[in-house]
C-alpha cells in the first residue's frame, strides 16, 4: 500500500473546472469553424438564377399573402442582404425557424444553393431584369 492511496482513497473525481472550460472552448471552436466554412462558400447570382424556381411561387408575386391564422404579405427578398438570406435558410433547415413551408424548401437546399440564392436576390433592384429562366 503506497502512501498516496492511503491518504487519498478512490473516489469519483470532481469535474475539473479548467477541463470543463477547455472542453467548452473546443466545442465553441468546432461550431465557429463550421459556421465559418458555410460563410466561406462563395455564392453566384448567375448560379442562383436556376435555383430560385421554388421561391418564385410566393416571393415573386406582388401583394401575395400567405399563412393561416396570421395572414401577411410574404417578405420582399429582392435587394435583401445575401448573407442574411443564406443564414435565414440555414435557420429554417436547422429548425430554429419553424415555418413549415420554408422548412420543407430549405431542407432540399445545400449550403452552396443557399449562398447562390442569397446572391441572386441581393443583386435585384428596381431596374434589374426579370429571371430569363422563369
Amino acid at each position: 500500500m503506497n502512501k498516496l492511496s492511503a491518504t487519498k482513497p478512490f473516489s469519483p473525481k470532481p469535474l475539473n473546472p479548467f477541463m470543463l472550460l477547455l472542453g467548452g472552448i473546443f466545442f465553441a471552436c468546432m461550431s465557429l469553424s463550421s459556421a465559418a466554412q458555410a460563410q466561406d462558400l462563395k455564392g453566384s447570382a448567375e448560379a442562383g438564377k436556376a435555383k430560385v424556381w421554388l421561391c418564385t411561387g410566393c416571393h415573386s408575386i406582388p401583394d401575395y399573402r400567405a399563412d393561416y391564422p396570421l395572414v401577411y404579405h410574404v417578405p420582399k427578398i429582392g435587394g435583401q442582404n445575401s448573407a442574411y438570406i443564406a443564414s435565414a435558410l440555414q435557420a429554417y433547415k436547422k429548425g430554429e425557424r419553424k415555418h413549415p413551408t420554408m422548412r420543407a424548401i430549405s431542407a432540399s437546399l445545400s449550403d452552396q444553393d443557399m449562398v447562390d440564392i442569397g446572391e441572386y436576390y441581393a443583386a435585384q433592384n428596381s431596374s434589374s431584369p426579370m429571371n430569363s429562366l422563369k
Partner: protein
Amino acid sequence: MKFTTIYLLLLASIGLASAADIESGKKLIAERNCAACHGADYFTSIAPTYPRLAGQHEDYLYYALRSYQVETNANYGRKNAVMGSQAKGLTDPQIRNIAAYLASLPGPLVVKK
C-alpha cells in the same frame, strides 16, 4: 338615438385600437437601439447576416417580431438569442407601431422574379 351614439363610439374605438402609430414606433425603435445592428437607415445593417428592414411589408415585420416571442410555436416560431430578447420585451401594439414605422421608410427591397 342612444343606440346610434354607442354604436358610433364603438366603431370609432375599433379605428383607434387598430391604427398603428408610426411616430410611437420611431421613438420606440430608437429607445431599443435597433439601429445598432440594423443601421441608422434600417437598410445599411452592420453585418451582412442582419436583414434590411426599411420598406419591408408592415404585416410581415409584425409577423416576424411576433414569431420571436413564440419561439417554439411549430408553425411560426423563430429562435434567435438577440431578437428573442428584444421581441419578448415588446407589447403587441408596440410591435405594430415599430412595423408601421419601418414599413414607411424608403428602402431598396423589391419583388421580382
